[in-house]
């Protein structure tokens, strides 16, 4: 099973962004991975071998890693530190050095200071400007105190969310793993939603927006909590923008969707895969044969060029 997934979103500030949206149509569950069928002459090899597209066109490359679960010792991967290092090696081998790295949460497995420290030690070897948000595994018992002490953004709101700009792209880091209530999935909460509305005020509709959050911001499988209850409110503020790229983690597999001007992506974990929605009794760690594990872990590379917008390519540790 090839878990590599490529998609190309050609929605940039210089075009209305409607023409190619229909290209990403078909999502198919296939065994343990997701395959995307693409049409319309989109170059399928893009990004995998590595043309240095982004830097030649005035844009930049950034990477997303997710769900490193340092401290996990289960059979699904007894050495998540080693696979995190392999993920960073993949990133280091990219033809152009990423300007940023985004970690979309579950840095640790049990929020233990020792786990967070071990993760920080490994991650700093990448020598990349790294931006974090917590997963629910990073906020167990202390509402993220130990996590934010190490990975919190300077100037972040008290709840840990923040935004920043890079190379013409506005990045928004949302926290949806605190303040859970029974029977729900992720939660943003009214204070954060208000902040988001404010943060976007005055931004031109042509500003490309990248939103990172741990739990998927759209309902992938609410029965397993793979949804964010109040995300709809966030999209009422994001709707007017011509290009919104949503990067999530949490489900340890790639699921992607295009809805109007918003492209949604969940990411592979660097630690262990989880089953496709409903394909197992529970969403717990999925044990796969050792030779298969690397093909189910990986990183995401995203190239941004002002003329063409954002293009994402997922690289497995086996690729």
């Amino acid at each position, binding site marked *: 099973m090839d878990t590599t997934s490529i998609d190309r979103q050609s929605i940039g500030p210089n075009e209305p962004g409607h023409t190619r949206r229909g290209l990403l149509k078909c999502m198919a569950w296939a065994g343990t991975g997701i395959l995307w069928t693409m049409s319309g002459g989109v170059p399928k090899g893009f990004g995998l071998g590595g043309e240095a597209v982004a830097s030649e066109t005035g844009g930049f490359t950034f990477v997303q890693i997710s769900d490193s679960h340092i401290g996990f010792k289960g059979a699904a991967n007894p050495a998540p530190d080693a696979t995190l290092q392999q993920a960073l090696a993949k990133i280091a081998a990219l033809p152009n050095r990423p300007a940023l790295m985004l970690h979309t949460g579950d840095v640790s497995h049990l929020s233990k200071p020792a786990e967070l420290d071990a993760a920080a030690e490994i991650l700093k070897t990448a020598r990349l400007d790294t931006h974090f948000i917590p997963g629910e595994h990073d906020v*167990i*018992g202390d509402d993220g105190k130990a996590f934010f002490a190490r990975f919190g953004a300077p100037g972040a709101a008290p709840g840990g969310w923040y935004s920043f700009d890079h190379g013409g792209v506005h990045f928004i880091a949302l926290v949806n793993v605190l303040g859970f209530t*029974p029977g729900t999935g992720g939660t943003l909460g009214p204070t954060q939603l208000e902040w988001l509305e404010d943060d976007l005020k005055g931004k031109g509709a042509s500003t490309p927006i990248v939103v990172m959050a741990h739990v998927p911001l759209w309902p992938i499988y*609410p029965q*397993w*909590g793979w949804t964010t209850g109040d995300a709809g409110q966030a999209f009422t503020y994001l709707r007017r923008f011509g290009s919104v790229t949503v990067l999530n983690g949490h489900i340890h597999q790639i699921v992607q969707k295009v809805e109007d001007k918003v492209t949604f992506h969940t990411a592979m974990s660097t630690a262990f895969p989880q089953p496709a929605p409903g394909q197992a009794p*529970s969403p717990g*760690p999925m044990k796969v044969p050792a030779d298969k594990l690397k093909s189910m872990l990986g990183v995401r590379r995203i190239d941004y060029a002002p003329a063409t917008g954002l293009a994402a390519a997922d690289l497995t540790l086996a690729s």
Partner: protein
Amino acid sequence: MTKKIMRGILAAFAGAVLMAGTALAADTKAVAISNFAFDPPTLTVAPGTKVVWTNHDEEPHTVTSASKAAPFKSAGLDTDEAFSVVFNRPGTYKYFCSIHPHMVGEIVVK
């Protein structure tokens, strides 16, 4: 290991609303945490019963009361770790996993 954790947690709850009664007197009932679910999801017990939750998943879970009136809250329970509460007062105690909030359960004391 597990016993030690349980004892520590019990000690932490002494004096709380539910009161950690003496283990001697308490009847013990188990709730398994498996496959991201509390089993059984509803457990009916007599007053004074000690309820022990044990996590059988590879994934951590918590046992966190849903109501502020009768708080109980475990730490993150890793594989095979357990948590217990002695329920002395009749009532319905709803709880959930604060890591996976879609996991819900209740203890009915009567």
